[in-house]
């Protein structure tokens, strides 16, 4: 295992009954890097994301995470409180549907502030100032801070979810189809935002997407999955410009040219 990697998975396997969701998957992620996991529906992308983030247990294999103190921890052997703390501070999870993550009955400011309060922030004015700063960071008007998320558009909801996730300055963020279900212009703006935030705060990202264009725009490295197996991995441009595996070739050639 490489000494500097932030997250390393070795030999991950998981079967849902007779269906192989993951077959002997190895993944490495370095600090500040964006890694895209692409593949067709049912290829095991989201399962891999859930297993990497400790939300789902694998049948076999191990996931190592290097904590801020430089120690390697086995994500699946961690006690539940430690894993929860990790998810609330050092890690983030951006869902495809922001409604899964946001509290729809709580104002935008409360949504952004929740992670701070879960970490023990107990100063109202500071929490509010930080929430306001992050709303501006994701291009939401500061005077919407007390509005309920249900008054927000789809793109705004997704940006609010990103603000809520990044407020604790995580080192690693898992994103599951962050631009799914948004129209193309909103997608472009969101991708731009994610790209600039990720670069500015040097956040490592594991990004699941079925959209090759999203992967090309955001990711430095790419993992191509098919039926639970990693069929090809490498630098994004290299893999997409010169695909070796037949499935990757199919995937790349099937993108419509506008």
């Amino acid at each position, binding site marked *: 295992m490489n000494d500097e990697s932030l997250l390393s998975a070795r030999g991950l396997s998981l079967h849902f009954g007779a269906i192989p969701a993951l077959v002997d998957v190895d993944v490495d992620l370095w600090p500040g890097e964006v890694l895209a996991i692409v593949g067709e529906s049912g290829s095991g992308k989201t399962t891999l994301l859930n297993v990497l983030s400790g939300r789902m247990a694998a049948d076999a294999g191990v996931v190592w995470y290097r904590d801020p103190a430089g120690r390697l921890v086995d994500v699946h052997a961690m006690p*539940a*409180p430690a894993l*929860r703390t990790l998810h*609330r501070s050092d890690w983030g999870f951006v869902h495809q549907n922001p409604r899964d993550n946001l*509290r729809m009955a*709580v*104002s935008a*400011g*409360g949504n952004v*502030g*929740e*992670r701070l*309060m*879960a*970490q023990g922030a*107990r*100063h*109202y*004015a500071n*929490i*509010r100032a930080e929430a306001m700063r992050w709303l501006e960071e994701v291009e939401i008007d500061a005077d919407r*801070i*007390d509005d309920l998320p249900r008054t927000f558009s789809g793109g705004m909801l997704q940006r609010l979810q990103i603000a809520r996730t990044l407020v604790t300055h995580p080192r690693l963020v898992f994103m599951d189809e962050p631009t799914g279900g948004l129209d193309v212009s909103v997608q472009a703006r969101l991708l731009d935002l994610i790209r600039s935030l990720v670069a500015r705060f040097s956040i490592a990202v594991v990004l699941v997407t079925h959209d090759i264009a999203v992967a090309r725009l955001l990711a430095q490295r790419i993992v191509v999955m098919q039926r639970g197996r990693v069929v090809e991995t490498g630098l994004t441009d290299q893999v997409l410009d010169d695909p070796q595996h037949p499935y990757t070739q199919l995937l790349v050639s099937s993108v419509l040219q506008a």
Partner: protein
Amino acid sequence: MSARMQGYNFAYLDEQTKRMIRRALLKAVAIPGHQVPFGSREMPLPYGWGTGGIQVTASVLGANDVLKVIDQGADDTTNAVSIRRFFARTAGVATTTHTDAATVIQTRHRIPEKQLREDQIIVYQVPQPEPLFRLEPSRAETRRMHGLSDYGLMHVKLYEDIARFGQVSISYDYPVMVNHRYLMSPSPIPSFDNPKMHMMPALQLFGAGREKRIYAIPPYTDVRSLDFDDHPFRATRAPHACGLCGATDSYLDEVVTDDRGGRLFVCSDTDHCTERRETGCVGAEGVPEAAE
């Protein structure tokens, strides 16, 4: 006191049930603020009228105990009178309205104004033991949150209140942290009473009959109301003096006296008010004791 009723076990419940409840109580005292499940029984009064409190009282009551029952601070309301008479008949114990004289006090929605002592037990009737129930619908999830001491969500509620109203708008059932560990609902007592729970010399027991939960605060336990550093906890109280006894430091009820906007603020703790009037204190609308 009337003689004890025949055909019933002492204090209505059978001994095995009391034993089960006492085991839950012991566990609750050992883990202050933690909700312990118990096999709540059908009682001869409807849910919401104090079935939890009455079962806890029945289990801790001994033949020599003196029982006081209050409802919103008053000894003379239907619920208080009924439960007091229930135990007088089924257990034959002495009953009182004086806080001083009681060894067991069952209460709904108040803590007596008078400081309780080490030899007293206060039993609260609890409608909803889960402080997070309005915020998190899943009980499995709230149990996990208690297990991991993960209470950021409760502060989100306080944040929302301050953002919307400029202050925390919870006036009763104000959530507390017990012994720096468990978030606990103090039952629907006014937030005015919250500071009395902190380091109270008496044993505090909480029974929720419908929800089948018991919890407790042992004597001299740290109980803190949740707040923000820059918005500290503030007990609310009507800015008046008691109309009958003139007290300015007790919790007041507002009583509508006519249909022309007339109103009277009186101590909600009737025993406290009576005692003050007996010593000669008279409020603006009160009549001196001697004249009555």
